[in-house]
């Protein structure tokens, strides 16, 4: 159907943009093998010392573990609240749906630095009453992350609900199914992939979160991004290159795997 393919000029320009997009990711690889303790390019001698640092220094494992715990708790909370809200909008079609959605998406559309200041205010206020869910604690960070990622759960679940045939729910309802049955036996099983996607994506968003985390942590709740930030801010630590290579490898493997899987599925059909 499409007959006008992009010409040579457009292809060349797009290739330049693609190189620009990939360049910094590739640049990290040689730097991670430098034998020196500062940022440099290895010339003769390549070394694994920065990868060894990742394993040897306990703070890296601690950061990874902390980020996983925070990410799991935050994404469970956010996906649960977000799913309930999206179901409410879809099933009940309330009168001020637009206004309610706007409110629910606020942390996503507000500038991150404003959200960071707002959550900083929130957590230091909580700190006056308890020291579990407070400034610079893991539960406090998880709560703040849940606030930031809940809107994404709402959006993702709403998108899968939009693809669901409303008549399925109407059929259940006309046969006398109550609210709980409709939700747990009819609607949720139908959008289970959407729920999984929402859970996974909100986990990744929390795992990577740094803007808000910088405002609400100092020395105790050091997540992996916070640890990387500390290694980048003053003297650049090549251990950051090693951890970056690991993270890039994970992302690239997942995306390549997913693309390969989709291509195979497409060929089967």
């Amino acid at each position, binding site marked *: 159907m499409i007959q006008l393919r992009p010409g040579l000029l457009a292809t060349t320009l797009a290739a330049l943009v693609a190189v620009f997009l990939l360049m910094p990711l590739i640049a990290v690889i040689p730097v991670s093998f430098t034998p020196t303790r500062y940022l440099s390019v290895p010339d003769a001698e390549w070394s694994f010392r920065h990868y060894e640092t990742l394993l040897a220094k306990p703070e890296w494992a601690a950061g990874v573990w902390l980020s996983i715990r925070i990410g799991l708790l935050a994404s469970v909370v956010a996906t649960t609240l977000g799913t309930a809200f999206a179901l409410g909008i879809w099933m009940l079609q309330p009168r001020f749906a637009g206004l309610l959605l706007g409110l629910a998406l*606020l942390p996503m559309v507000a500038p991150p630095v404003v959200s960071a200041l707002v959550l900083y205010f929130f957590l230091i206020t909580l700190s006056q009453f308890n020291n579990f869910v407070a400034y610079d604690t893991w539960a406090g960070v998880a709560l703040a992350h849940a606030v930031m990622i809940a809107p994404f759960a709402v959006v993702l679940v709403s998108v899968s609900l939009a693809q669901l045939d409303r008549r399925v729910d109407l059929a259940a309802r006309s046969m006398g199914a109550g609210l709980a049955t409709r939700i747990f036996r009819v609607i949720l099983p139908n959008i289970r992939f959407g729920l999984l996607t929402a859970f996974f994506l909100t986990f990744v968003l929390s795992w990577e979160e740094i803007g808000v985390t910088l405002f609400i942590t100092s020395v105790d709740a050091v997540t992996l991004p916070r640890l990387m930030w500390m290694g980048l801010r003053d003297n650049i630590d090549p251990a950051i290159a090693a951890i970056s290579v690991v993270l890039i490898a994970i992302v690239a493997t997942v995306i390549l795997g997913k693309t390969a899987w989709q291509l195979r599925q497409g060929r089967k059909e």
Partner: protein
Amino acid sequence: MLRSRLLLLGPLLLFLAATYLVPFLGVMQWSVTLPEPGLGQYRAALTDPLVRAVIWRTLRICALVTVISVAAAYVITLLWVRGGPVMRVVVELCILIPFWISVLTRAFGWLALLSNKGILNSWAQSAGMLTEPLTMVRNEFGVVVGMVHFLIPFAVFPLASALRTVDERVLMAARGMGASRARIFWQVFVPMTLPGILGAALLVFVFALGFFVTPALLGGGRSVMVAELIYLRIFQSPDWGLGAAISVILMIGVGGLLAAMMKLKGGMK
């Protein structure tokens, strides 16, 4: 009916009211009470030469970054949407992999490439093209490069949906009437995607305004932007009232831009 409404919509709304809306009011309260009651901080934010310089620089950098990101995204989206089948997969990977990699890793990649002991300077010096390292980070250039790199994928997604809706028959008609390829592109294709271009530009601009991590790392404290200024006023030279006042101004500015975007979208339908 009312009960199910409360059960489904209530939890998230209550959660966000407690964690976001009320603390936001608290931040607003800071802005008019610290260090003394009154609108002094707002007056300071709008008249203080330092703050004004930062706001002006932010607007300038964000405008530049928006133009470059949208242009680059347009070129690569063109290939993604209209290229051959293999090209599509390759381009998709070039967009998705950087998109999923954390902002810290990407900023580090640029430091590895552009800093004085980085890859580009090492190569240029060993090839004899440079005698002194060229300073490309810890200044505005580095900030612009890093922000463009971060924002291109965000411009690609709205552009892709705009480019996909172009009616092929219109292009064929132009072709049939003897228009050259360049003329079809500039006078038929681009005008048809103009709403998408404007939408992407507004989105990128709004995103860029609240940007914190990339400017802080690649600007090296020398080209401070609004978001970093807020951070500095809260944590380094404490002036919570001023930081809060700038946050409120930023929130209002972004709110205004988003409202304009909604209106633009509504007007086009």
